């Protein structure tokens, strides 16, 4: 079974702390994504990566950074957490290339972050 694993399902952090969210996929996918999901706002793309060490900003990159040192791993970093970053964070991966398969995203279970 294909799998995207997010390191933590639930985290509670304090304002100003550095937060790492880890995501690992076992499907040898080229593309990886980080979204945040908030009620009424749907899914908003934070960053994505289409290859090792490559990254692109999504719609809401401010306050976040990412790292992709290995193909299977994509990390989201909150340098200094703030209360408005309390959210559900979803990692996803997909095949690369121009075809429709690149739109078939495989999602992790999500990481619910609370910043106090």
């Amino acid at each position, binding site marked *: 079974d294909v799998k995207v694993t997010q390191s933590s399902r639930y985290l509670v952090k304090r304002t100003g702390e550095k937060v790492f969210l880890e995501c690992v996929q076992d499907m040898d996918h080229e593309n990886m994504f980080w979204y945040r999901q908030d009620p009424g706002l749907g899914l908003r793309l934070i960053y994505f990566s*289409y290859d090792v060490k490559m990254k692109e900003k999504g719609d809401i990159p401010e306050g976040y950074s990412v790292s992709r040192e290995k193909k299977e791993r994509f990390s989201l970093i909150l340098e200094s957490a703030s209360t408005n970053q309390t959210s559900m964070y979803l990692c996803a991966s997909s095949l690369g290339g121009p075809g429709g398969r690149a739109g078939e995203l495989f999602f992790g279970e999500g990481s619910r972050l609370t910043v106090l």
Partner: protein
Amino acid sequence: AQSVAQPEDQVNVAEGNPLTVKCTYSVSGNPYLFWYVQYPNRGLQFLLKYITGDNLVKGSYGFEAEFNKSQTSFHLKKPSALVSDSALYFCAVRDKASRGSTLGRLYFGRGTQLTVWP
């Protein structure tokens, strides 16, 4: 620019009745279209996609969707709803002409909460 609109935040339907979850899209070229479902406290799951060919596509769990180019719509349907279909549904689009670094990116709607009551 690419975008998706899901005009209904909520859809309520009785078990056994047909259901429709609406989606309209905007792309500059031809679209790839997708539906995803999210069950409570879970990540999203791929449901079905339209790439080319037959306008009616069938997916998992008895769902189907109809691509209508003239109306730029891709509505999700099921002939007979089940209580277990209750979930959050997301429509997504990607321009076939996407190139380069944006190639794999999808644009999602805000989601429609489907509730099927017994």
